[in-house]
């Protein structure tokens, strides 16, 4: 079973690597390297590091002029990766901590793997890279629009260049049409000549009448290659999508193993800073733990459900009638269970949604600086006034109010539970009568 599972995992990771290489991300480690990274092996760390930095460079390629990492020294690379991950909202100690690692080797491969998983899951990076690749593929001669300095005359100039380009493009199209009609004429004549030479050798022309045997020009071959390449990329993407859920299950196991190690580490201290008040939500780790527990519960429920379905489908009426009756819940019981589960899940969701205040922020009263244009793949971002850690007071107030409401709701629920518990206990005890307090 475990070997099957590990083979499956390898398949999954291989499909991810294939997709990444199809999207032209460089220096992709092997599936084996991924597995070793889970166990914090030193050699895997180097692979994971280069993968992570390349991926982040691609992600931010349009937003900043990233120099090739080969030229940069490792400190600069480390700084870039940390700031990029921070921007993604990744709050691991080695990224946002006050005592950052001074050297790349201090960061374990498992941490890098977790960071990679975070980058993959936040926003829709893969979709964005795919869209980029397809756009490139569809217009092979497209020029990159590199932003020059600001100013009205550059926009006017760009417009004019664009107009001139459109003119030339139109001219080319018209010339192409002329050439096409010339070719049609030539084929008509060729057909006529051939039919005069040997009437028997002539086959009926197609309805369109413009196909020759020597239509396969170099341009068509190139076109074919391009389309085949695009096909390959799309197939890799679809393959990855099929295997994606298994990948996240595996990542779960990585997180689990990192947590068991992390519990042995000392807790991180947060000294108050001079200039900024950095608040880190103390529920951070617990949040993650609860989320993982939730995931596990979901997985368990799903597998149980699947197993039950299989049971039901394979049970025949005659042989296992008795077992059937016993294993099925009555309708009302099932409803109750569902209600309880959904209520519990809702509670967990509300208490553990990572709020803005749980990330690092700098509160400020005045307007924040104008935001950078949103990253293209963060399409689902709420349009809040958060800029590189600055948070407007009003936004923070709203957030805190929401949190207060959630906590109130939780408190109410706990009270309710207590009441029910007390009543139950009172009813079991002989000679005890419970008088609830007067309702105000």
């Amino acid at each position: 079973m475990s070997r099957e599972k590990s083979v499956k995992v390898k398949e999954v990771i291989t499909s991810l690597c294939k997709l990444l290489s199809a999207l032209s991300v460089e220096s992709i480690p092997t599936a084996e390297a991924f597995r070793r990274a889970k166990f914090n092996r030193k050699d895997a760390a180097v692979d994971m590091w280069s993968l992570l930095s390349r991926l982040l460079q691609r992600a931010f390629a349009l937003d900043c002029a990233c120099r090739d990492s080969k030229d940069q020294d490792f400190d600069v690379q480390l700084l870039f990766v940390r700031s990029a991950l921070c921007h993604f909202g990744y709050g691991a100690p080695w990224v946002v901590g006050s005592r950052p690692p001074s050297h790349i080797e201090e960061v374990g491969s498992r941490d890098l793997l977790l960071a990679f998983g975070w980058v993959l899951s936040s926003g829709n990076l893969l979709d964005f890279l795919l869209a980029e690749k397809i756009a490139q593929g569809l217009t092979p001669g497209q020029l990159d629009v590199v932003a020059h300095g600001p100013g009205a005359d550059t926009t006017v100039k760009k417009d004019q260049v664009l107009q001139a380009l459109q003119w030339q493009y139109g001219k080319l199209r018209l010339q192409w049409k002329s050439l096409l009609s010339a070719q049609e004429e030539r084929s008509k004549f060729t057909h006529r000549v051939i039919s005069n030479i040997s009437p028997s050798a002539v086959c009926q022309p197609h309805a369109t009448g413009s196909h020759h045997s020597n239509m396969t020009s170099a341009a068509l071959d190139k076109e074919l290659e391009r389309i085949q390449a695009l096909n390959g990329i799309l197939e890799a993407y679809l393959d990855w999508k099929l295997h994606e859920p298994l990948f996240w299950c595996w990542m779960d196991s990585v997180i689990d193993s990192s947590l068991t190690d992390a519990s042995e580490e000392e807790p991180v201290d947060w000294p108050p800073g001079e200039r900024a008040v950095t608040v880190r939500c103390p529920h951070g780790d617990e949040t993650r733990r609860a989320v993982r527990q939730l995931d596990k519960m979901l997985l368990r429920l799903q597998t149980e459900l699947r197993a039950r379905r299989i049971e039901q489908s394979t049970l025949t009426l005659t042989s296992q009638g008795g077992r059937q009756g016993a294993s099925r819940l009555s309708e009302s019981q099932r409803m109750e269970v569902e209600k309880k589960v959904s209520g519990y899940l809702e509670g967990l969701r509300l208490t553990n949604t990572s709020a803005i205040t749980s990330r690092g922020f700098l509160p400020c009263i005045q307007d924040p600086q104008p935001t950078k244009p949103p990253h293209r793949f963060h399409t689902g971002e709420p349009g809040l006034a958060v800029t590189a850690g600055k948070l407007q007071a009003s936004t923070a107030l709203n957030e805190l109010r929401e949190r207060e409401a959630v906590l109130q709701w939780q408190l109410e629920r706990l009270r309710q539970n207590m009441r029910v518990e007390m009543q139950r206990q009172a009813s079991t005890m002989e000679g005890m009568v419970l008088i609830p307090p007067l309702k105000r």
Partner: protein
Amino acid sequence: MSTDMSVVSLQLGQCGNQIGHELFSVISDDSSGPNRKYKQCSDERFFYETSTGGLVARSVLVDMEPKVISQAIAKASKSGRWRYGDKAHFSQKQGSGNNWANGFCVHGPHHEEAVEDLVRMEMERCDRLAGIFTMMSVAGGTGSGVGTYITQRLRDLYPNSFILNQVTWPYGAGEVIVQNYNSVLTLSHLYQLSDAILVHENDTVHKICSRLMNIKHISISDVNKVIAHQLASVLQPAYTADSTCHYSTNPIGELLSSLVCHPEYKLLSLCNIPQMSSTSLAYSVFNWPGLLKHLRQMLIASARMEEGIDWTVSAPSAVTSGGEGATNSRHKSFNLSLANLLILRGKDVSTAVTDGFKDPALYVPWLKTENSFSTWTSPVAFNGYEKSATLVSNSQSLLKPLDSIVRKAWNMFASRAYVHQYTKFGISEEDFLDSFTALEQIISSYTHV
């Protein structure tokens, strides 16, 4: 080896059929001179030979009324030099009532197969197709409505063929009340379908007839003759930049790639000089410098005829200091061009100096002069004029008339006058709004060119 390309003409509606007939007449007259190669090329382009040796026009005649078509066919046969094909026409008993929606939504779809068959027959008869040339007016119902629908069908059927639409804009104070609605709807649709729209304005041609040709009682036939003369001067054989030793075999393609490469700028205007009555012609002598100077001024002052040119309009000279000088010296009615095509026909055409048209100040700054200006020549005297110069121009000169049409149509639409006539045939108010938007876009493109 390449043969001459042939043009398939489509005459739509009353105006289109009348102009078409005049056009073939002029072409046939013009090429019946001594120059054999010219005649051969022209005949191949516009006619085909029957087994009996007669010339038949490569043309399809379409109208919803039979009267004009039968007149055109009769007149052509009477000339003895050429005629229309026996089956190359399509007509119905009842017209379109000057209603674009009636033409576009009812008559067009109803008769599309018949018309397409006729066009296909003509196209298959051509060894090589230069393009489809349609003639229509935008004010009526058949030419505009049915014409637009047929153009749409042809565009779908022959996506790689060139389509050149000649359209006639109505008199400003025209008779048809809804002519501006029809114009707006036609132009907005044609702009997407056509490769280029060659515009004639009735007002302009009328002025040419009255002032230059001294015609006392101007008839439709006189107006059409002038239009036909101008069109023929463009379509008849000429030497181009691409083919300098034999007549160009791809006239429409070369016309389009000189002038309308940008998809937003497709309006072409025509200017032809000299234009005068045949009696005055006998006593006039022309020289190329004089003709070209007039033509150039007509271009930059947006004048359409030789009389009444505003000579105060001048192009900004490059000599003036800095940008401020340029804006000062640019007259506010200076006509900026995207591209110009100059066609010179007649004696000593090789001596003509066209440098005045190569001035970069005449053109938009983002297009180099070698892309903006081209010249065609022909040593053959055209249609009785010893020397003749035609300027086909893609410029701002049509802005004012277009704007006027749109404004008038909009004023009517604001009170929804007569709109129910259109909605009952299937053209909704939304379609109107789309058309207005499209034309506003075109106007804006040309204004801020």
